[in-house]
C-alpha cells in the first residue's frame, strides 16, 4: 500500500504574539512545529503500514525551513519525503494550495500508484479545513473527511470502511480505494521516534521539488495568482462602544466586589436574575 501524507509546518501558535503598536504578528523566535492535526493523519498512516506493509511518502509545500518538519516525520517512520518549495507558490490560498498539492501527488503517482492520501482535519494557522477536500476533488479521489476511526481495510477488494464525524452522530461509510482521508484530532497518539529512524531521518536524501518538478503547467493556478481570495485588510478589533464598567469598592474586598457586581448586573440585566431564580 502506498500512502501519501500531507503535512504543513506551522509556527507554534501558543507562542505567537502581536506587536502592540504596529499590530503585526511577531514570528521571530517562534518555534515551528508540524501542524498538530497532521500528526493524527501520519500516525494513522503508520498504523496502516504496520498492518499491511507498504510505503509512506510525506509531502509538504512551504519554505525551505519546512525540511525540519519532513525529517521529523521520517523519524516517526515515514519512508520518503518531498519538500515542495518555490517562490511561485507563495501567497497561495486554499484553492491554489490544493492545486499545487494535487499536482505533486500526480507526479508521485507516475512512479508508484497511490492508494490513499491523508491530511489533517485542518491547520492551526490557516484553520480552514479546505485543503483536504480540495485535493480530493482535483484528483478525483473519494473524500472521507473528519474520520474518527478506520474500521476496516480490505486490500484485495480495495475497500475501506470508516467512521466519519457528522453533526449529531457518526456516519459509517464504505468506499473504494484510492481515497483521501482527513483525520480528526484525538483519534490516536503519535508513537515515539526510534533511534534507527532518527538516524535514518537525519541522513535521508530529501527530495526538493520546484514548480517544474511538481508538474505545474499553468502558472495562473498557483500562488498568489491562482488565489481567488484576497486579504483586503488586517485590523485590530475595535473596543465595543463602551469599555467594561469596572467594579470598584472602597474596601477592595472580594466579597464587596461580588455584592456590588450582582446588584449592578441584576439591575441592567433582569433576565439574568429571572433565569437564576427560575432555576433555583
Amino acid at each position: 500500500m502506498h500512502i501519501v501524507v500531507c503535512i504543513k509546518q506551522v509556527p507554534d501558535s501558543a507562542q505567537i504574539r502581536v506587536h502592540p503598536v504596529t499590530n503585526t504578528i511577531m514570528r521571530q523566535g517562534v518555534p515551528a512545529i508540524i501542524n498538530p492535526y497532521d500528526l493524527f493523519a501520519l500516525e494513522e498512516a503508520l498504523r496502516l503500514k504496520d498492518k499491511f506493509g507498504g510505503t509512506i511518502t510525506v509531502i509538504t509545500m512551504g519554505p525551505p525551513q519546512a525540511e525540519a518538519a519532513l525529517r521529523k516525520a521520517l523519524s516517526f517512520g515515514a519512508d520518503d519525503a518531498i519538500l515542495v518549495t518555490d517562490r511561485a507558490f507563495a501567497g497561495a490560498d486554499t484553492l491554489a494550495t490544493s492545486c499545487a498539492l494535487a499536482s505533486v501527488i500526480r507526479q508521485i503517482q507516475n512512479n508508484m500508484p497511490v492508494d490513499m492520501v491523508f491530511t489533517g482535519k485542518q491547520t492551526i494557522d490557516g484553520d480552514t479545513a479546505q485543503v483536504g477536500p480540495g485535493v480530493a476533488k482535483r484528483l478525483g479521489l473519494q473524500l472521507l473527511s473528519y474520520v474518527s476511526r478506520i474500521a476496516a481495510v480490505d486490500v484485495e477488494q480495495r475497500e475501506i470502511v470508516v467512521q466519519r464525524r457528522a453533526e449529531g452522530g457518526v456516519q459509517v461509510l464504505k468506499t473504494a480505494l484510492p481515497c483521501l482521508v482527513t483525520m480528526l484530532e484525538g483519534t490516536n497518539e503519535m508513537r515515539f521516534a526510534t533511534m534507527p529512524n532518527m538516524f535514518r531521518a537525519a541522513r535521508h536524501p530529501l527530495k526538493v521539488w520546484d514548480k517544474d518538478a511538481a508538474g505545474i503547467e499553468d502558472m495562473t493556478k498557483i500562488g498568489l495568482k491562482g488565489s481567488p481570495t484576497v486579504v483586503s485588510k488586517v485590523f485590530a478589533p475595535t473596543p465595543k462602544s463602551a469599555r467594561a464598567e469596572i467594579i470598584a469598592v472602597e474596601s477592595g474586598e472580594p466579597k464587596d466586589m461580588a455584592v456590588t457586581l450582582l446588584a449592578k448586573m441584576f439591575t441592567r440585566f433582569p433576565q439574568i436574575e429571572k433565569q437564576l431564580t427560575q432555576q433555583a
Partner: protein
Amino acid sequence: MSETAPARKGKRKFELDPRLAGYKGVWVFIEHERGRVHPVSWELLGEGRKLADMLGVALSGVVLGEPGATTRNFCEEAFYHGADRCYLIEDDILKDYRNEPFTKGMTDLVNAHQPEILLLGATTQGRDLAGSVATTLQTGLTADCTGLTIDPDNRSLAATRPTFGGSLLCTIVTLNYRPQMATVRPRVMAMPARDESRRGAIVEHPLNMVEANIITKVLEYIPDAMQDKPQLPFADIIVSGGRGMKKPENFQLIWDLAQVLGAEVGASRPVVQAGWADLERQVGQSGKTVRPKLYIAAGISGAIQHRVGMEASDCIVAINNDPNAPIFDFATFGIVGNAMHILPALTETFRQQLATTKIAS
C-alpha cells in the same frame, strides 16, 4: 484565506468581468441530517437576508434531500426564516449526506442559476461540501467567518475572520470569481424571527445520477449519546476559565461557581491544550461559539480567537488581574483582581442571594 498574501491597502477600483456580471442573488445551503435542519442554516438565512437587501437581490435556500414531505417542509421553513425562493433537488440518492452527490447537485444548481454569494454552515457537513464545491467551480471560499457585509464600492462580499496568531481580524474578498463562497459557524449570527405568513417559490431540479455509479455508501449512522456531552452553544450561563487560573487544581473554583449558577463550564484554548478541560468545552474560533445570557471569564485575556466565540453574549463579566487585559475592551462588567479570591466570593454571594430569593418566593 491566505495568511501569506500581503494585505493590500486602500480601496481598489474594480470592474467585475462582464462574464460574471450575470451572477445574481444570495444563496444559503439548508443543511439537514436525520430529518432535522441544522439551526445554522436559519441563522445564515437571517444574515443572508441582510446581504440580499443591501444588494437588492433575492435570497434563496438550497435544499437537497430525499423526495417527500419532510424535504418539502424544509423549503417552507426556509421561507418562514426569510428566503424568497428555494432551489430543490429531490432524489432518493440524497437521503443521507454524501460528498459526491451533494457536490454534483450544488454545482449543477450554481451553474444553472448563477448566484453571486453562496453561504454554508462551518459544520462537518458544510465544510466537507464547501471545499468540494469551491474547487469544482474554481472559486474563492473564505472559511469560518465571523462577520459578513457588502463592500459598497464594488458589491463584493467582504468576509471577516480572525487571523493567524493573537489579536487581529482580516477581511477577505473574492474579486474576479463567482460565486463568492463563505462558511460561518453555528451561533455566530443571530437566529432570525420565524414568520409563518411568509411564502416563496420552489424551483425544482433533477439530480441526474444513478446510485450504482456512486462509490461511497452509508452503512450506518450512530447518533451521539447526548446525555453526558456538554451543550455549551445553547447554555444560558457559562463560567469560563483561562490560563490565568494558573493550575489545574484552581480550575475547581470555576466548577464551584458554575454549580451554584446551574451553568456550563467553558475554557480558553491553552487550558484545553494543557488538559485541564475537555475539547468540548473550548470556546472560540477553533472551539464552540456561544451566546449565553451571562458569560463569566476568569483569567482569560480576551484574544480575538476567544472573543469571536463569546462576544455575542448578553452580559460578559471579566475577572483579570491585569487592568489592561484586552477583555476589558468588550466585557460588560470588569473586576480587576486575583481570580483565586474573586471566584470564591462570587460563588458565596450568588449562593446567598439565590437562597434568599428562594425563601422569598
